[in-house]
């Protein structure tokens, strides 16, 4: 079954299709949530919320609006950000780590049993400072192009091309 059919089945509330999609993307979603929340128990919770939300709002997704992965990614970033803004969270965690995804990957022991572990670790160790920030902001934090440009003090037009060359390196290593 191709991805398109899978998503259609999922939209018709087919639990099997949902499970397949879940297995494709849950680690990524978990990674993004954890990068924002920085607490593995809380991020487990948020990930569940995210997929439940995707399940119950399945019919609101349309391919024309973007990739399915991107759709779930958006739900996840919003849910994670809502979580860290919540009062309960703020009182339990006074200060969040300032590490970036690269630091998490470098110290991630869970990675050892993944086949791409070596490639990914190699990728982040070779990544330039600007690439680290662009990827962090665009994919993990969901910054807009404009926000990235402002944070890095580079022209807005440069964000796109710079990001492309960063992702190109990633593709060379992991695909």
């Amino acid at each position, binding site marked *: 079954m191709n991805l398109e059919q899978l998503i259609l089945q999922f939209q018709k509330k087919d639990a099997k299709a949902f499970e397949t999609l879940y297995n494709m993307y849950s680690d990524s979603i*978990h990674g993004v949530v954890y990068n924002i929340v920085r607490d593995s128990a809380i991020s487990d919770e948020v990930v569940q919320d995210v997929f439940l939300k995707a399940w119950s709002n399945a019919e609101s997704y349309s391919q024309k609006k973007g990739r399915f992965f991107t759709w779930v*990614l958006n739900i996840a970033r919003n849910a994670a950000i809502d979580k860290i803004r919540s009062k309960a969270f703020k009182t339990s965690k006074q200060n969040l780590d300032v590490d970036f995804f690269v630091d998490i990957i470098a110290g991630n022991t869970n990675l050892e049993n993944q086949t791409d572990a070596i490639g990914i670790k190699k990728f982040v160790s070779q990544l330039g400072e600007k690439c680290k920030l662009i990827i962090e902001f665009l994919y993990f934090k969901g910054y807009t192009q404009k926000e990235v440009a402002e944070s890095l003090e580079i022209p807005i037009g440069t964000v796109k091309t710079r*990001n492309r060359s960063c992702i190109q390196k990633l593709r060379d290593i992991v695909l």
Partner: protein
Amino acid sequence: MDIKAYIESGILELYVAGQLSEKENQEVYELMQQHPELLKEVLEIEASIVKLTAATSPNSVKFDAFKDKITDAKVIQLNPKKTDWVTYSGWAASIILAGGLIWTLNNNTELTNQIETVSTERQLLEIQIEKARDNLAETRRLLDALRTKDILTVPLNGQGNYDFAYAKVYWNKNDNTIYLDAKGLPNAPEGKVWQVWSLTLNPLTPTSLGIIDNFNTDDNKIFAITNTNESQAFGITLEPDGGSASPTMEQLYTLGVVNTAP
């Protein structure tokens, strides 16, 4: 549409990141239907991002962990409860409210986009106005210079094969400047440059006043040149790049004699 350039622009990476506008998302989607290479590119970008983000996951959450929750939800949906009008009208009201909110939000986003476009356009216009102002100031300065009382006008006419060419020299002896209006000369070909000469006639002695190396790029083709000579005539020749020590007479395009009576 140049698909390769479109891919190279980096727009697809932003598409996967979810950072495009609704309109752009739609555009990428439609282009993907027509161009398989675009779809392939998106799939590869997505696959690499899926792998990268998965690498920051501290542990996996098994699907079974909440399988019950989704099947429960499904069961509830399949067993319609008795009609509860209060609940339904409550839902209806909140849906209408949410619809209204989304509409306002959309409107707001659209307006913000418009403001951004307008402010970029304004910046462009400001740059153009600035440029126009500079041009105007420059033109005024030239006009003032040419209107000075004691200025001598020397028309230079086309010579020999070049009788289409013409130029004019305005000579202000008070400040030792000539203004050469060379609109009647063609652009200098590659490797060549226009050179201006001051001449005394008896005996015929040329003195170079310099080359005009910015001729082709100058807009108004008026050049201010210092001239301290007691010139009796002015001539313009086409010389190799860098100019020559004495004029190449076969390449004399225009020549004009100074009328000494003011």
